[in-house]
C-alpha cells in the first residue's frame, strides 16, 4: 500500500477494499514510526485527520466520491488551514492557529482529501535545505545525514518515506522542485497565477506558486486538477477555463506506439551543462534525455543567454518583496511577542530579533537594502529588467522547442550543515530552477536516476505558459518506460 499511486488508492477506496479511515490510520502509523528520525512533520493531529477521513468515508458510501476523496495529503506548514497550527517554520508564528483556510486547502477539503498533517519547511520558505526550520532540520529519507532539499523539504521527505501518498508545497525559486529532486519524488510548480496564493503565507509575492508533490506525474496531475482554479481573492489568480490535467495521460498516442512522444521537441540549454554541474547528475540527466529520444522526442540545442543572471536577479527581487511581506510579523496582533520590552520600538526590535531566524533576517536586510533610497534603481529596478530579459530568453527558446529539460539541481543531496555557513553556495542550488519563477513558467522535477552515494537525481522540465498538461504527459510517458519514480529509500518499508 505505501507505494500505491493516487489512482490506485482512489480505486481501492471506491471499491471499498479499504476505507479512508484505514488509509489515514495507516499513514499516521507510518508517521509515528518514521517521523522521529526524519522530522518531516511538525504537526500531526490524528483525531482531526481521522474525523475528516470518516467524513470522506461517508461521502464514498453516499456515492459522492471525487478522485481525491479519502486520500490523505500532507500540507506544507505555509498553507493556512482553519484550526491547524500554521507556523511557516518560524518561531514568530509558533503559536499561530489559523482562523481560515487557504484557497488550496479549501479546494482539497471540498474534494474530500484528508489533511494528514503539517510538514516542516525552511523558515518562511527561505532555504534550499530545510535546515532553517525553527522546528529543527528535516532529514533525507535516502540518507539521514543529508538534507532533503528545501524549502518544501518536509513534504518531499514525507512522500519519499511513504508517510504520505501526496503532499502540497510552494515554490518561489525551486522550493518544490529542488527538494523533489533531492528526495527522489515528483513535484510541479504551475504557471504563475494557476494556483491561488490566498492563504499561502507570502515569501515573494510575484514568484510564489503552490503546487503538488507526489510519486508520479499522473498523481501530480490528479492533485493539480483540485489545486488549480480561479480565486477572486487573489488579484494575480488567472481566470481561465477549467482544465483537466490528466486528459493526455490515458490517450493512446497517435502513430508509433513505441514512440508516444513523437514530434516533441526538447530544448536542452547549453548553459545548464557547464561548470558547476556535478558529473553524476549530468550523466543521469543525459541518460534521461536519451530515454526521451527513444520515446520519439527530438533533442534541440538551445541557449538561454541570460540564465547566469537569474540567481543574482532572484536574490534581489525575492528578498525585496520578502522584506515587505514579513513586516506584518511585528508582535502586535498575533504571533510571537518578546516578553520584555521598554517601549514600542523596543517591542518591535526584540520581537522580530527573537522571532526570526538568521536566514530570514539576512533576507530582510538584503531586501531592505535594495529597496532603500539611492539603491532602488541600481538593484531592484535593474533586477526587474533582467527578469524581463530572462522571460524573453524563454520566448525565443519556445520558438525552437516545446519543452526545456536539464538538471533540477547541480548536485545530489548534500550533507546536513555542509552549506549552512556559506549562503552563496546555498543560493547556487537554485541556479536551474529560479528562472522559471522569474518568467512565471510551469516547471517540474521527476526522478531520473541516482548519483553519488546512491542519492536520487532530478530531471527538470520547463514548459511554456499553461503547458502543464503537455509537460505532465511527457513525464508520464517517461515514467511508463522507466521505474526511477518507483524506487524508494531503504529503511522505510
Amino acid at each position, binding site marked *: 500500500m505505501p507505494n500505491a499511486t493516487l489512482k490506485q488508492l482512489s480505486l481501492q477506496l471506491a471499491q471499498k477494499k479499504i476505507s479512508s479511515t484505514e488509509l489515514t490510520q495507516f499513514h499516521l502509523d507510518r508517521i509515528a514510526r518514521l517521523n522521529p528520525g526524519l522530522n518531516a512533520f511538525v504537526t500531526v493531529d490524528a483525531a482531526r485527520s481521522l474525523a475528516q477521513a470518516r467524513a470522506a468515508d461517508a461521502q464514498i458510501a453516499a456515492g459522492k466520491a471525487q478522485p481525491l476523496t479519502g486520500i490523505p495529503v500532507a500540507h506544507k506548514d505555509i498553507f493556512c488551514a482553519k484550526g491547524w497550527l500554521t507556523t*511557516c517554520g518560524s518561531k514568530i508564528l509558533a503559536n499561530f492557529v489559523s*482562523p481560515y483556510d487557504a484557497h488550496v486547502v479549501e479546494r482539497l477539503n471540498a474534494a474530500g482529501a484528508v489533511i494528514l498533517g503539517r510538514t516542516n519547511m525552511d523558515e518562511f520558505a527561505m532555504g534550499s535545505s530545510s535546515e532553517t526550520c525553527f522546528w529543527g532540520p528535516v532529514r533525507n529519507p535516502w540518507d539521514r545525514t543529508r538534507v532533503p532539499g528545501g524549502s518544501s523539504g518536509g513534504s518531499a521527505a514525507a512522500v519519499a518515506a511513504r508517510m504520505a501518498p501526496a503532499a502540497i508545497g510552494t515554490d518561489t525559486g525551486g522550493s518544490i522542485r529542488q527538494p523533489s529532486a533531492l528526495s527522489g519524488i515528483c513535484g510541479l510548480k504551475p504557471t504563475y497565477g494557476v494556483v491561488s496564493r490566498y492563504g499561502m503565507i507570502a515569501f515573494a509575492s510575484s514568484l510564489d506558486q503552490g503546487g503538488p508533490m507526489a510519486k508520479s506525474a499522473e498523481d501530480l496531475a490528479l492533485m493539480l486538477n483540485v489545486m488549480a482554479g480561479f480565486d477572486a481573492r*487573489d*488579484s*494575480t489568480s488567472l481566470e481561465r477555463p477549467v482544465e483537466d490535467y490528466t486528459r493526455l495521460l490515458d490517450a493512446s498516442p497517435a502513430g508509433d506506439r513505441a514512440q508516444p512522444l513523437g514530434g516533441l521537441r526538447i530544448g536542452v540549454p547549453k548553459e545548464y551543462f557547464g561548470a558547476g554541474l556535478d558529473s553524476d547528475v549530468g550523466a543521469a540527466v543525459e541518460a534521461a534525455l536519451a530515454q526521451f529520444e527513444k520515446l520519439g522526442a527530438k533533442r534541440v540545442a538551445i541557449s538561454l543567454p541570460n540564465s547566469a543572471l537569474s540567481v543574482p536577479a532572484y536574490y534581489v527581487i525575492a528578498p525585496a518583496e520578502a*522584506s*515587505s511581506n514579513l*513586516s*506584518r510579523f*511585528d508582535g502586535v496582533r498575533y504571533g510571537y511577542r518578546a516578553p520584555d520590552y521598554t517601549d514600542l520600538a523596543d517591542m518591535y526590535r526584540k520581537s522580530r530579533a527573537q522571532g526570526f531566524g538568521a536566514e530570514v533576517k539576512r533576507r530582510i536586510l538584503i531586501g531592505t537594502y535594495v529597496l532603500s533610497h539611492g539603491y532602488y534603481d541600481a538593484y531592484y529596478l535593474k533586477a526587474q529588467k533582467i527578469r524581463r530579459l530572462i522571460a524573453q530568453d524563454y520566448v525565443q527558446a519556445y520558438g525552437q522547442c516545446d519543452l526545456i529539460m536539464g538538471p533540477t539541481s547541480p548536485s545530489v543531496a548534500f550533507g546536513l550543515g555542509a552549506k549552512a555557513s556559506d549562503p552563496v553556495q546555498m543560493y547556487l542550488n537554485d541556479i536551474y530552477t529560479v528562472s522559471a519563477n522569474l518568467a512565471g513558467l510551469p516547471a517540474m522535477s521527476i526522478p531520473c536516476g541516482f548519483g553519488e552515494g546512491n542519492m536520487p537525481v532530478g530531471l527538470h522540465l520547463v514548459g511554456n505558459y499553461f503547458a502543464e498538461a503537455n509537460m505532465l504527459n511527457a513525464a508520464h510517458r517517461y515514467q511508463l518506460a522507466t521505474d526511477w519514480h518507483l524506487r524508494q529509500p531503504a529503511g522505510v518499508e
Partner: protein
Amino acid sequence: MDWETVIGIETHAQLSTVSKIFSGAATRFGAAPNVQACAVDIALPGVLPVLNRAAVEKAVRFGLAVNASINPRSVFARKNYFYPDLPKGYQISQYELPVVKGGSLLILVKDGEKTVRLTRAHLEEDAGKSLHEDFHGMSGIDLNRAGTPLLEIVTEPDMRSAEEAVAYAKALHALVRWIGICDGNMQEGSFRCDANVSVRPKGSAVLGTRCEIKNLNSFRFLEEAVNYEVRRQIELIADGGRVVQETRLYDPDKKETRSMRSKEDAHDYRYFPDPDLLPLAISAESIEQIRSELPELPQAKRERYMHEFELSAYDAGVLISSREVAEFYENLIRALGGGYKLAASWITGELFGALKRAGLEISQSQVSSVQLAELLQRIQNNAINGKQAKEVFDAMWNGEGDAEAIILARGLTQISDAGELEEVIDRVLAANSKSVEEYKAGKEKAFNALVGQAMKATRGKGNPAQINEILKKKLAS
C-alpha cells in the same frame, strides 16, 4: 522686508464607498472597535488585497471634475513603515504613477477668482487608530478605519495666504461632496488637510524651506495654523535663524504649531510596486461612462446662473456653495416658472438667515422649495407685498401651514385696487402738506416719508410699487 507666503495643500478625502479599498469589510463610521476589521484588514498571514472598483470610479470622477488627465495605467505601491495601527507594516498607496494627474480648481478670494493647480490625486488606504487613553499605560488599536479608501489630492504651491488656503480647502470640500465621492465630515476625519508652508522675500523666485503641518481637520485650524506658521517662520528668519524642513502639528488649544519630526528622522519608505496587485487599468470607455454620469459641476452652474439668469457673481457663487443649495434653487425656479432673481434673493436672504438662526443645513429647511414657490408666486402676482411675504415666510418656518392658509388666516391681502389706493393717498397728501412742500422744494427724502405714511394708512397692505407710481403722478400734477 516684505514677505510672501507660499502654500501647497495635500488633502486626504475618504471616499464614500460601502466597503474598504482592498477588502469587503464595511466602512461605516462609529462602530465598536475592530468589528469592521476582516482578515485582510488585520493582515493575517496569507491574506491578499483585492481592489474595490467603486473607489477607482470615485477617483476618476474627481479627476474629470477638475479637468485632470486620468492615467490609463496606474500602479499601486507599498509605502513601508512600522506602526501598530498599520497592520501590514506597509500602506498600499500610489507613488510614481497616480490615477489622476494635473487638473485645477477655481477658488473665490476677496480680489476675485484664482486658479489653484493640482499636481496629482492618488488612491490609498487609511490606517487604523491608536487609542492611548483608558488603557492604563498600554495602547489600544482599532482597525475599523484600516483600509478605508482615501483619495490624496495634492496641489502645486499656488496659494499665497491663509485666506487662499481656506478658500481652496472650502472649494475642494464643496466639490468632493458635490460629485458624491466624500461625505466631507471633518469631525469624523473624512476630509483632512496637510499644509506645506514656506515664506520668501517678496519678488524672490526661489521657494523657501517648507514645513508641513499635518492633519488639519477644520477650516479654522487650517487658517490659524498657517497664520501662526507664517509668523513663526518670518520671525525666525528675521532673527537670523533658518527654517528647518520638518513635519509639524497644530495645537488648537495653544494655537501654535510644534515640531513632530525633522527631515533627518524622516522614514525611507522604500516604495516599490505592490506585487499583490496588478497595475490599475482604466479604459477610455469607462472614463467616458463616468463622465456621462457626472452632475453639472459648480463652476459651470455658476456661469450659467450669471449668463442665463443674469444673477450677480455673488448670488451665483452663494447658490453653488453646495449641490443641495443649487438643487433647492433650481427646484424653486422650476416651480415658479422663472423668477430667477427673486428666487435667488429669497434663498440668499430670508432662507439662509432662517437656516443660520436655527443652525440647520438646507436639506433640513423648515420651508420646502415648493412651499417657498407658492409664497413667491403671490409676490409675483401682487397678491401680497414683500413685507407681508416675510411675515408669511416666518409663519411657514414656524409650521403654521402653507402660504395660502397663512395669508387667509392673517388677512394679508395686498391692496392693488388703484381707486382704493388713490383715495388713501389723497388723504395722506392732505394730512401731510409739509412733506408735500418739502418734496416740491427738492427734498427727495420727503417722498419716502409720504410712501411710509401711505403704507401705514393701508396697514402695510398697499402695493408699494403702485403707491410709488400714484404718489409720483399726484405730486407732479
